[in-house]
Structure formats: C-alpha cells, structure tokens
C-alpha cells in the first residue's frame, strides 16, 4: 500500500543486501569524522556533524527495515530534532565567534582571552561635539564589525571585557 506509486518498479520488494546500507552509514560517518577532524573552518565542521548525524539516520532506517520495526524511523525524527536544535545553537555560536574574531577558523577561537580590537566610538548624540571622540579611535577599530554599521545601538564596545 505504502509503495503504491513505485510498486511496479519495486515489485520484488527490497532485494538488495541490507548490509550495504549499514556500510553506507559507516562510510558517511567516517567522512563526517574526516571533516570534523581535519577541517578548521567552523562552518564546515558543523556541516560534517550533520553528515555524521545523517549516517546514524541511515543505519536507523536500515535496521528498522531489517527488523520490521518502526521505532528506527521514529528515532530518525528525534535525531532530526537534535540536528535542528544543534544547527540553531551552532550557527548562533558561529555568528558570535565571527563577531569577536572576524574569522570562521576554529584555531582563531582557541584562546579564551579577548582580542583587543580597540575601543568602539561611543554613540553620537545630537548636539555633541563632532570631533569629541576622535582621540579614541586607533587603526585597530576598523576591524571591529560592530563598530561600522551597528555602532549607534551599542553604546559600549563589543569587546567590552578587553578594555578592562
């Protein structure tokens, strides 16, 4: 019934060796492992984690098929939920790290200490002297993403702890 639309093509049922599917899962997992272990780009590391989760999904579906048991497919949903939550948090971390370090390389984020990008010019208020905060600026603050477009809504420097 479920297979009605493909039935003529798959009339004989699943006739391939299911071990192959588990093998595919293994191969995908090691590819994901390769990505996480070798790549330094945080985005690609996140993608590799997705590959590993998918490898687990393949194996779950395969065993669900083998044992004629739906739980495997249900577990795939839970795995997808975990993946969705992981991506949301992971990407939020990527954005936070990128804001601080201007880089997507994990090695740049290896050091816990704040990088001093120099003070961010404070919010310009109406009527304030235009040249008032020129002495704050130094060559470094051009690096700070927070200082260019978004300065008006953050009166404090982004890397506030760095000044302390």
């Amino acid at each position, binding site marked *: *019934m479920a297979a*009605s*639309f493909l039935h*003529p*093509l798959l*009339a004989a049922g699943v006739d391939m060796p299911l071990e192959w599917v588990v093998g595919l899962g293994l191969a995908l997992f090691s590819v994901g492992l390769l990505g996480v272990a070798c790549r330094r780009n945080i985005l690609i590391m996140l993608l590799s984690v997705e590959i590993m989760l998918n490898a687990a999904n393949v194996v779950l579906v395969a065993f669900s098929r083998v044992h004629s048991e739906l739980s495997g497919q249900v577990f795939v949903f839970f795995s997808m939920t975990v993946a969705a939550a992981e991506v949301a948090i992971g990407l939020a971390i990527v954005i936070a790290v990128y804001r601080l370090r201007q880089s997507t390389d994990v090695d740049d984020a290896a050091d816990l200490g704040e990088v001093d990008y120099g003070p961010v010019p404070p919010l310009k208020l109406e*009527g304030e002297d235009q040249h008032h905060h020129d002495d704050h600026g130094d060559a470094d603050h051009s690096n700070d993403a927070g200082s260019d477009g978004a300065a008006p809504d953050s009166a404090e420097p982004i890397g506030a702890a760095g000044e302390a």
Partner: protein
Amino acid sequence: MMGVLGTAQLGMAPIVAHIFSKNDDGSASFGWVIGRILVVLLMVHVILILGALMVWAERRVSAWMQDRIGPNRVGPQGLLQPLADLGKFMFKEDVIPGHVNKVMYTIAPLIATIPALITFAVVPFTGSYETVGGESVAVSWQIADLNIGVLYILAIAGIGVYGIALGGWASNSKYSLLGGVRASAQMISYELSLGLAVVPVVLMAGSLNLGEIIAYQAENTWLIFTQPLAFFIFLTASYAETNRLPFDMPESETELVAGYHTEFSSMKFALFFLAEYANMTVAAALVTTLYLGGWTFFGLETLGWGMGVLIFSLKVIFFLFAFIWVRWTIPRFRYDQLMNLGWVVFLPLTLINVVLTAGAIALDQTWMFFLLPVLLIAAACVATWIGWKRDEDKFQPLPTAPAAGEEGHA
C-alpha cells in the same frame, strides 16, 4: 487507490490500453513506462505553456487595471506574444559577467526551475467516481499517487529557494546578494505558516494524500468553509513563497534594482521568470486541491473526466488571476512588516487553529468546525484591537516643534 492516469478510463481502444498497461503481476512493462513518460511530458509542457500564457495574462490584466490595453499585436488578442518573448530571450546575448561564480551562476536558474516543474506530479487534475466496497468514492487522477503528497510538495517547493539564494550569491553583486539573503529568510519564515496552515486540512481529511483530501471534500464540504482562516493564511503565505507582490522582497525593483536576477540575462533570466510562474501555477493548484475541492464542483464533475479537468482548470485560473490582481493592487510590504506578519501574526494564528481543530476532532464535535472560523476571526479582531489600544501613545500629540529660527542650529 487508482492513481495513474488510467488509459482505460480515457476511453481509448482496448489495444492501446493494453500497450500502456502494467504486466499481469503488477510490475512495470515497457509500454507502461513509455506511457508514464508520455503523461509526464504532456504535464510538463502544459505547465510550460501555462507559464508562457501567464506572462501574457500578467501584462494584459495589469494593462486593463491601469486603463491600458496591453500587448494585442502578436496574434489574436496578443496571444502569441509569449512566442515573441521567447524568441527574444533565446536570441539575446547570454552575458556572463566577469565577476560571477560561473558554476553556481549557471546552475542557479536550473535549481530554481526544476522543483517548480516536478511539484506538479502529485497534483490531481481530474478524476472520477468509482464504487469501492459498495460506496461511491471520488478517485483522483494524477501522475504519481503519493501517500505523502502534501509533504512532497512542501519539501520540493522549499528547494526552489536555493536557486534564488544561489543566484543572488553567485552574481557577486550587492543587490543580488541582498535579494538572495532576503529570499532565504522569507522562505524559512513563511514555510512554517504554510505548513501549519495545511495541518488542519490533513487532520480533517485524515490523510496526506491529495486524492484522499479531495475525496473527503467531495463527501463532506469544501475545506474553505470549515477552515477559512487556514485558507487565507495558506494563500497569503503562498504569495510570500512564490515571491509575488506584496511580498516580492527578493526582487523589489525600487530598492534592489531587480534583486537576485539583476545580473542575469537571456535564457537564464527566462528560466527564473518561468520558475516564478510555474511556482504560481503549483500554488494555485494546491490551494484549489486543499481548500476548494480540486476537480469537484457540486456534482458537476460526474459528467466525465473532461469536466473534471475543466473545473480544475477554471479554479486554478481564478487563483492565477488573483495572483495578478493582488500584484497590481497592494503595494509592497516593508521587510520588518513582512517578518512581523509571518512570525507574530500568522504563526500564532495557525498554531491556535491547529490546536482547536485537533480538539474538535478529538471530541468528535463536527459542529465546532463551523464555529471555529467565527471564533478565530473574533480572536484575531480582539488581538488587533488590543494592539491598537496599546499603540495609542504612539499617536499622542508630539512635543511642539522648535521655532523656525532655532531649527537650523540645533
């Protein structure tokens, strides 16, 4: 369930029916595969021609709404204008700017077009009544009878955004990139409301199969009457998903030149164009199927499968007209308004709708289906009223403006 466009029902000679039928054991015969390919080709061409005609219709209708006449020179009533447009697109120079990412730039229009074309596979375009177990049941005909038809359409339609986002990114220009980023954000925001607006339909019909949803509506009532809010939200969200005005942020020409397709020309641009119109056709067909009973029309469809095609086409054409109609009436939303509408208005409304519908089904209170829309519309009105009250301080008389002399020196 009979899903294939059954050749026997089309009244073809038995010998033809034999050629295109499956083997006796239900496996695929050569003739069956050929027959399926022919049906698929027919369907694809119907959409392509419809897409071309839509360009003509868009220009004619917009002209009528602006007291103009529109293209009426090429062929009767300008109906051959699409051919002229096509000729122009084909023979124009295909410029690939030097600064683009060539691979992505080339495949982006394809990625945008293909999902739009393949979604139509599960849409039932006609059907007939058949006696199943002593009961007359509406059986729909479509290319592929998928048990998860609704999910299939939602899944594939979500892929189309890659074409737009990648096209914008690969063009390597500011306007295109902004268009692409907007497209992906908009798509994520509105896919939620779109999917949640379908859930009550699925709950009431008890199936994800589009044919069974139509059968439910043929037996009971059209879902637009019992789920008007879901219908309205689905329709609006599909405008956003197809990037049509008032939600055409990705290509808003007054801000972003042409958005994601600024750098595209010739057939690449034509493919983006085609994808938009094919997407509109699919959205119209889906609204028709989910909320307006598809190919059924109060018993008129019993006249034969041709009547079913006619009814379905007329409904789809009405919604296609509505797409054009709305485009030339409502101005574009601001981006924050767009996001606000999606996340703050539509998402809670659809969620409440889902919960209430599920409750009504669980309690088996069918009369509640008719009360639900009234309740929800009242709730929406109350929510609006509260918001309106809260906004009141925004409109308090402003502090008096400084005198003219001071103003310049402030």
